Structures are given as structure tokens and as C-alpha cells.
């Protein structure tokens, strides 16, 4: 277990299980949502919030915290699930997800939610903000790091590559980015919408320290976050996480066209049962 002050007692697999469970329960509130993404990224968020990052749930703006930027704002359901598990947000607010006057809107926005550090919804913004935060932290002499999560579809946006070039230019070794390669975006499989491979070669050529892992293998995710933190070179760090949409709920894993899914009322209970079945594996 790492140095995270909130992660001693419950192991990370249990954290990931609970993040998935929170996300499914929020999905049930609206009957729809970006559930499949939440399930695929739960392991990464478990490691980020309960192993890698220094945060204080009761003080979301604590100056010494590590920053976390959710560039893919539609993954808000996943981050809310993690923030609820971490104690930033009371568990009972889960039932307000996506509803009028909720602090948990479908798209992540900094003005609504404790622990949400940027306003997403429009894609390809997070990495540019991360460059600025990385520069600002260095300028202040801060030991904090900036983490950012973005999706493979965001690689289509030119602004993402501007930020990728810039982060290396400024030698931002305090910037750790995770790209979720689940190969699914609005119009179809990401690699078919716009071919972005070979991704590791491209990122290395742009001057980043790059690791590619199975983003649903907890041990691999832990090792990658540790290596990203400890890597000696003055380079920004990218974790390319290959993930499985709907991970942990087999019938959702198998479903096609699952960028934004609608789930029948009786299926939510089945999804929770599937998570429970996988809990002891």
C-alpha cells in the first residue's frame, strides 16, 4: 500500500469493486449513462485515489494535494463513484446523479462538485490545463503532481498534441497522464474513427516516458503509477491503459455500441449481482 492517507484498510480490489458499484447505482438513477466507461476505468481510479495521489477528502482545495483533471467530462459518473468512495461526496448524494439541481451533473464541472478540478464536456481540454498546472506547481516549488485522465477519442483533437509537445518541452516530470484506450467513441471504435496507433511510438517520439498496460490488471496499474512517480528522467509521464468497456459486468462487456448505454430496469440488479460475483475472484 502506498502513502495515501485514506487507503490503509481496504485493499484496492475492494475499492475498485465499490467504485464500480457506485457507478452502476448512479446509472440506475437515470436508466442510462456512460456506465461502460466507468466500469472500464474503475481500476485506474482506485489506484489513483487510494494508492498514488495525496488528497484530503474533507479539504478538496488543500494546497499540498495532487491535482486530478478529468478531461473526459462524460466519465464524471466514474469520478463521482471514486469521490464518493473516498469521502469527498456523501454516499446519499449518489441518488441525485444527473437530476435537476444535483451537485453530480452528467458532465463533470468544477463549479458543481467537490473534488472536480476542471469543467469538461468539451473534449481535449484537460492536458492543456495540466501543462499550466504543472508549470504553476513548479513555479511555486510545490512537490504536488498533476494527474489527468483522458480518452482515446480525445487523441483526435489537435489541441491534445499541442499539449503533448508542450509538456515535453517544459520537462514536466510532475505531470502524469493516463489515456483510456477502450477503443470506443461516439461514432464507433476509436481506431476506426481515426487511426491513432502506434501510440507508444508516437508519444515516445514526442519526448514522454510511456508505459502501456492492461488497465484492468490492478497490479499492472499500481506498478505503472509507481514507475510514473519514480521515473528519474525529466519527462512527462504517460500511462496508456488498454481497458475493456463494461469491465466486471459480463453482459455489458459483450454489448455492442456501448458508448452511451441504456439499460433496462431489471438489468441494473443483474449488473450489481455480476459485480458481487466477481468480488471474491
Amino acid at each position, binding site marked *: 500500500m502506498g502513502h495515501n492517507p485514506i487507503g490503509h484498510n481496504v485493499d484496492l480490489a475492494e475499492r475498485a469493486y465499490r467504485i464500480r458499484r457506485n457507478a452502476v447505482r448512479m446509472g440506475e*438513477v*437515470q436508466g*442510462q449513462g456512460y456506465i461502460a466507461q466507468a466500469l472500464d476505468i474503475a481500476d485506474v481510479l482506485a489506484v489513483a485515489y487510494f494508492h498514488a495521489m495525496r488528497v484530503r477528502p474533507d479539504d478538496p482545495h488543500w494546497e499540498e494535494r495532487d491535482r486530478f483533471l478529468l478531461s473526459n*467530462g462524460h466519465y464524471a459518473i466514474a469520478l463521482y463513484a471514486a469521490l464518493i468512495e473516498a469521502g469527498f461526496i*456523501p454516499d446519499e*448524494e449518489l*441518488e*441525485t446523479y*444527473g*437530476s*435537476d*439541481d*444535483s*451537485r453530480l*451533473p*452528467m*458532465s463533470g*464541472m468544477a*463549479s*458543481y462538485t467537490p473534488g472536480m478540478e476542471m*469543467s*469538461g*464536456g*468539451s*473534449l*481535449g481540454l484537460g492536458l492543456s490545463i495540466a501543462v499550466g498546472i504543472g508549470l504553476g506547481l513548479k513555479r511555486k516549488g510545490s512537490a504536488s503532481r498533476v494527474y489527468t485522465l483522458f480518452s482515446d*477519442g*480525445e487523441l*483526435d*483533437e*489537435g489541441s491534445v498534441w499541442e499539449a503533448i509537445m508542450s509538456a515535453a518541452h517544459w520537462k514536466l516530470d510532475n505531470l502524469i497522464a493516463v489515456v483510456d484506450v477502450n477503443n470506443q*467513441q*461516439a*461514432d464507433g471504435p476509436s481506431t476506426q*474513427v*481515426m487511426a491513432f496507433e502506434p501510440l507508444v511510438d508516437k508519444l515516445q517520439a514526442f519526448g514522454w516516458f510511456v508505459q502501456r498496460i492492461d488497465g484492468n490488471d490492478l497490479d499492472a496499474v499500481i506498478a505503472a503509477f509507481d514507475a510514473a512517480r519514480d521515473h528519474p528522467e525529466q519527462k512527462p509521464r504517460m500511462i496508456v491503459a488498454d481497458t475493456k468497456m463494461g469491465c466486471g459486468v459480463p453482459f455489458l462487456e459483450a454489448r455492442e455500441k456501448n458508448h*452511451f448505454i441504456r439499460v433496462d430496469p431489471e438489468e441494473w440488479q443483474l449488473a450489481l449481482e455480476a459485480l458481487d460475483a466477481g468480488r471474491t475472484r
Partner: protein
Amino acid sequence: MSSNAPAAPAAKPKLKTSAMIASIAGEGQRTVSAPFGHALVELAGQRPEIVGMTADLGKYTDLHIFAKAFPDRFYQMGMAEQLLFGAAAGLAHEGFMPFATTYAVFASRRAYDFIHQTIAEEDLNVKIACALPGLTSGYGPSHQATEDLALFRAMPNMTVIDPCDAHEIGQAVPVMAAHKGPVYLRLLRGNVPLVLDEYGYRFELGKAKTIRDGRDVLIVSSGIMTMRALEVAAALAADKVDAAVLHVPTIKPLDAETILREAGRTGRMVVVAENHSVIGGLGEAVAGLLLRSGVTPVFRHIGLPDQFLAAGALPTLHDRYGISTAVMTDRIKGWL
């Protein structure tokens, strides 16, 4: 924290969805599915120079209908709006007529310089069709295009169209193609209300049309607000208020002659109603025209406030920001 941030909830809130995509059709209202996509397919059968392009939003702008009918004339540009419009300029440069689609927020905010420099400055023949205009998404400011009319009105060479319903979109597509030069279309997608067919209406570029006449108040509107204005007029009629509705689907160039004639009729208050920020849209365009022309009726303006709007269910938000039929009716009654 902005003023948008609600306090932690005390009572159990109403569960209304704030989904990105929601039909603006009322309960039981007649609708047509994907009128833009079907109209474009019909037109493209006669005009081989038409190509379709999108930035990862084919399914969400009804362009998937075109992509299926003409797969070799469809370009998926990825989620890259600057590239989308730059490449559209390139195709237009080579003699093709691109219909390029994305959401209104991304064309107006993200790709503005590309459209300005690569398309409008050269007066290239690119048709820009953008879904989720104004407040037609409950997803929050990232998807609520509350200033697109202001931005595209201000761009030289750009023609700007804000259609009301499926009937008008179907007619606007061939008219856009017949017009030489860049056009920005506020696109209604999915199940789109069908309203204007009952009024024998026909879309003409640059023409405002009286949909309903009345003695007491003139509602000047565009887009979905014309649908609302007709509902308001019906509600006002029950209170013996006789409201006229002047539909102005072409925001630029504005039909000055018709607007001045109708607003110049004595004894009628003029109310401009628009699904857009009160800054820079139809309301200020009409107000400026009237003032410059020395036509000064009592003037009122219904539009979205100069704020980052909330996420929430569309009916909730339309009530909150004053563009629902009920709230509009009450406000106009209060002004009379």
C-alpha cells in the same frame, strides 16, 4: 465555486434527466425523424458535388443517413473540429460542396478561426450544419450553444439560418445548396417537431414570414421559438389578446423590409423571442434595425440570460430561463 453551484441537497430532488440529447418535441407532438439527413440524401442524388463530413458526430447530427446512402462521399474526420472545417474548405476549393456537421458549440467556439479564415474569408461553398443550438441540451454549458448566432452573425460572408421545425429543415437544405457561399444552419436532429406544414409555410432564404396575424402584439421569433410563439399566441387568444407571429428563420441577412413593415404597424408591442443569449442574436439585430430606421414601437426581448446555464432537464431549464410557453405567456401578459 460559481453561483451555479447548488448547495448540498436537503430534500429529495425531482429525478429529471439532464441527458445530452433530448427531443424538444412536446408530448404527443407530431415529429419527423432525421429531416436533415433525409433531405440531404435526396438532394445529393441530384448534385454529385455534395460530400458529407463530420467530427465524430455523424449519428448525432443525422449525417449517418447520408453516410449510409453515399458511403464513398462521406468523410469521418474524427473528433477534430478545426481539421473538419479546414478540410471542408479544401474540398470546396476543389469544387465540391461539403455539408460539415458537428455540435453548434464546437463549430462556434472551437473552430471559429478556421471557419473565419479558411471558409468565410474566401467565401467558399461550405454548408455548416450544427446540432444542439441554443438551449436544446440539458448537459450543461459545454453543449449549450447560447452564443452561436452572435458569433456567426459577426462573421462576414456568412449566411445564418435558424429553422423552426422538420418542415422547414427539409426545405432549407436544397435552398442552402442553391445559395453560393458559406451557410451556418442551426440543426434540429433526431425526432424533430412538425409544425409549419399546417400553415402552408414555405422557406425562402432571407425572408421573414407572418405565420399568424394579430392586432395587439407582434412576436418576432426564429428557430424553435416560433413553435413556442404560436403556442403562446394560442394561449393569449384565450385571454382575448390577439398576437401575431413573424418567423425570421434567416438571421443573416435579415429581412429588413418585412420586419420594418410589421414592426411599423401602429399599436402593437414588439416582442423578440429567441433561443439564444440576449447578447448578439435576433433580439439585438432587430432592435438595431428598428432604431437605425426610426421605427420605435414598445420593444421587449425574450432570450437566454448572460450566464453559464445549468445542467438539468430541458423542460426545467426552459422554465427557469424563460423560454417555455407558459413563462413566455405570463411575461407577455404582464407587459401588455
